[in-house]
């Protein structure tokens, strides 16, 4: 007998992870970065500037409580206590709500720093697609910001826009990208970039008999167009990398790469952590300064 569950397709799974083969007892400097976004909160724990443990969860309504929760969750199973952290830096939309952070640093600086950690010093263009915003950052070989653009006014091209769509076609959001790629031929993109109007247009397509995959492809194509339009404002120079939760949507990434005719570097670390990682790295530098190592 199967029970009828009402599934929330837009709710991506929360998770934590400890990097194996690392022991914090040997570490000199233990820091953490907390990136409280408007949709997701991320914590990264670093041992001497190397990623050790992390967690990602939904921010929900009260970001202060979430900041505490996400750090505690990252520390769970490691044996570390919050008191063991030498320095914590907060960032993101809700960075002012990280109660135990010694400093808050802008998300731009943290993302650029985190992107360099994840992808290496050849990074020149960072595209960050978060829950409620989309950022484009051009930087030089030293990681200095040359050009910056952020769009957090409009849901099109953000994680929220995709969540709305996942709900519409009843596909779990972590599978959405794959579904959008399961088409033989790429359909024309939906004509509206406004998520509300694109949703209505997609609904009409579904009613016309278009299969889910095709509608997903049309929507992803429109969102990719929107993202590339934004990127072109700052220009794209290799190496090109993508961070943020939406970096995990192959349907968006593949289409963006195709439109730009540039391949993004593949990450070895979860790209959603760029902000938190950068914050954790800044925390190490600031701690070293504090204790006179710099």
């Amino acid at each position, binding site marked *: 007998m199967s029970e009828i569950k009402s599934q929330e397709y837009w709710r991506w799974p929360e998770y934590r992870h400890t990097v194996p083969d690392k022991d914090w007892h040997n570490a000199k400097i233990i820091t953490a970065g907390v990136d409280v976004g408007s949709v997701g909160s991320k914590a990264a724990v670093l041992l001497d500037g190397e990623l050790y443990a992390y967690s990602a969860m939904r921010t929900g309504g009260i970001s202060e409580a979430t900041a505490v929760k996400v750090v505690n969750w990252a520390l769970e199973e490691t044996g570390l206590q919050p008191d063991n952290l030498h320095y914590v830096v907060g960032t993101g939309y809700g960075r002012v709500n990280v109660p135990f952070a010694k400093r808050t640093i802008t998300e731009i600086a943290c993302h650029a720093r985190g992107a360099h950690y994840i992808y290496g010093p050849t990074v020149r263009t960072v595209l960050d697609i978060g829950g409620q915003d989309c950022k484009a950052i051009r930087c030089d070989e030293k990681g200095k910001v040359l*050009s910056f653009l*952020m769009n957090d006014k*409009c849901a099109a091209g953000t994680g929220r826009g995709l969540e709305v769509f996942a709900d519409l076609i009843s596909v779990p959001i972590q599978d959405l990208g794959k579904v959008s790629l399961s088409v033989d031929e790429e359909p024309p993109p939906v004509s509206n970039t406004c998520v509300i109007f694109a949703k209505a247009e997609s609904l009409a397509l579904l009613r016309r008999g278009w299969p889910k995959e095709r509608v997903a492809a049309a929507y992803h194509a429109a969102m990719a167009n929107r993202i590339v339009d934004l990127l072109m404002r700052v220009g794209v120079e290799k190496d090109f990398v993508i961070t943020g939760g939406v970096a995990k949507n192959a349907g968006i990434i593949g289409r963006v790469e195709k439109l730009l005719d540039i391949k993004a570097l593949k990450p070895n670390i979860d790209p959603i952590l760029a902000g938190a990682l950068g914050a954790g790295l800044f925390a190490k530098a600031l701690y070293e300064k504090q204790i006179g190592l710099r």
Partner: protein
Amino acid sequence: MLAHYGYKDGSGDYFIIIDTDKCDGCGDCVKACPYNVLEIIPNEFDIEGGDMAAVKEDQRKKIKYSCAPCKPVSGERKLPCVVACKPKAVSHSW
């Protein structure tokens, strides 16, 4: 460094672009703006960057509307902030 303040939505692209290499934080644009859209802040991208002009945070998501009165449909268009800036550090994308 080019800082793009504003947004893109279904109806278009609306960005005020500040060239921080040219901007000396003089504040002439802030005084010239009739709608309190701009302010002078410490350079938020470069810790050693000095002061720069920027769009106020609470204006960034609605500059299409905030700047609308300075952009009449017909007639001559002179943007006070652009005109006031001597080093030509301020520009509008629309």
